[in-house]
């Protein structure tokens, strides 16, 4: 999802230190390196993806964010990016806390389970929703902790972190989320993008 990467790149300041958690094939890392001249590192669980990153000259550590963020000291990075993987962790709460310990700020994106298509899918079919962005069956999906944009906003109050910027992606258009439009953004947003801080 290129638009998502563009939004993240816009948020990140030039020459900062960035960690991309679950960096996949390094597309975002490359973009940030070129556009923002950032000092960027990645963590990726898949050996194949790590190989792709190496072939692009990116510094990537093979590892699992749930266990391997421990090794980074407090505030090692200006930004820690977690793109569409929060829902795949066994304990998202610990991961968020770790992101905010390792990074001064974190950018978290979540596929929105509150999207109307997902809701309709469940309402009409009565089976776990399968959509373009959530293509797996319930029994083989890596996404074990799906949440909605609204859930994430609530989550910030429960575990006490600040949301500095919240954006919704609707048909490749970005818009701000605020308390008065939350209902609609949660219904139409495909993706929520949050800039958060301790």
């Amino acid at each position, binding site marked *: 999802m290129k638009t998502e990467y563009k939004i993240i790149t816009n948020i990140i300041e030039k020459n900062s230190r960035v960690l991309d958690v679950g960096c996949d094939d390094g597309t975002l890392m490359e973009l940030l390196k070129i556009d923002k001249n950032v000092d960027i590192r990645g963590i990726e669980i898949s050996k194949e993806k790590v190989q792709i990153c190496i072939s*692009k000259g990116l510094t990537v550590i093979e590892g699992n964010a749930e266990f391997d963020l421990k090794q980074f000291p407090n505030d090692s990075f200006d930004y820690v990016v977690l793109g569409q993987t929060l829902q795949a962790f066994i304990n998202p709460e610990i991961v968020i806390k770790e992101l905010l310990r390792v990074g001064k700020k974190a950018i978290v994106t979540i596929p929105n389970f509150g999207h109307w298509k997902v809701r309709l899918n469940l309402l009409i079919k009565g089976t776990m929703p399968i959509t373009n962005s959530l293509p797996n069956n319930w029994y083989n999906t890596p996404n074990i902790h799906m949440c909605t944009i609204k859930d994430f906003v609530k989550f910030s109050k429960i575990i006490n972190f600040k949301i500095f910027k919240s954006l919704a992606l609707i048909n490749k258009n970005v818009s701000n989320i605020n308390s008065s439009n939350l209902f609609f953004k949660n219904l139409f947003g495909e993706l929520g993008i949050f800039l958060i801080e301790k």
Partner: protein
Amino acid sequence: MNIRENIKTLIIEKPLKLDCGQTINDFPLAYETYGSLNENKDNAILVFHALTGDQFVTGINPITKKDGWWSYAVGPNKSIDTNKYFVICANVIGGCMGSFGPSHENPKTKKIYGTDFPVITINDMVNAQINLLDFFGINKLFAVIGGSMGGMQVLQFISNFPDKAKTAIPIACTSSHSAQNIAFNELGRQAIAADHNWLDGKYNLNNTVPDKGLAVARMAAHITYLSKKGLQEKFGRKLQERDDLKFGFDADFQIESYLRYQGSVFVDRFDANSYLYITRAMDYFDLVKQYNGNLSNAFKNTKAKFFIISFTSDWLYPTQENKDIVIALNAIGVNVGFVEIESDKGHDSFLLDVPDFLKALKNFLDKSYNEK
């Protein structure tokens, strides 16, 4: 076994104070090079060999007439591309391929050193090899690379000379030799010492060699370089040139015959006392202790970019021990990449045709070289 015409030797005049307290000078360091040094002298790679390796990294080893120990990785268009890079490798001191070692003559006594040779450490090995940079007029190496004991030398090199290499690739190694590894090395040393031809290391005086003991040491060590799965798949319970068990103690099984062969060819090319000295150097290696319990301090002055590689089936230098190095580097913000390569070839994976490993090594080097 000393000076042979195929061996290039640098005589190091500068005194070198060893960790054991003795100082050596005017000693030989045997080396080999591949490729050519460019005008800017920024394409040099120093490769460190493992326990039983030598300076003949690739091509045909002129002494053993066999392929160099890292022929899969080093050569024209290979991972460490000798069309592009200037590869230097030296025989470690304590070794037996031309560098100052226990098979050399003590100039004072005119006798072969044997076990009177000073005990060598990984630190000593690296401090001897830094002289190669002056010799070639190289200010900064493009890379230091090594697997196993070679990886330990990479770590020690960077901690001793933090600004002498642009990149560092320690492979399948550790920052502190484990009890299990010391135990295996001790097994090998005791096998040598138990050979009645060893004569407390003075076998040269009698024109004998403790080849039985050295072969057993090699056989035991060889098992540790492989994996259970690899052994099972390659040999299983297959019999050696026979249809049935012979109810005796000949090599009934292929694995027995294979190990005996590995032992027998090893004694032709390796000196038993060198085996004692080099395994000792590995056992003494503890970079964590050298830096008072904090491995990060070993690297705090370096700007080198690290790439650490381990193998899934390596139980001698398991992934966790390699990851400990990654953790220490991340703790101080050093640029470090890490990958664990899937392979059932055990610790030996780094020496073999393991495409994912060779690809990662090539990509890392070539991309890093283009970054100025």
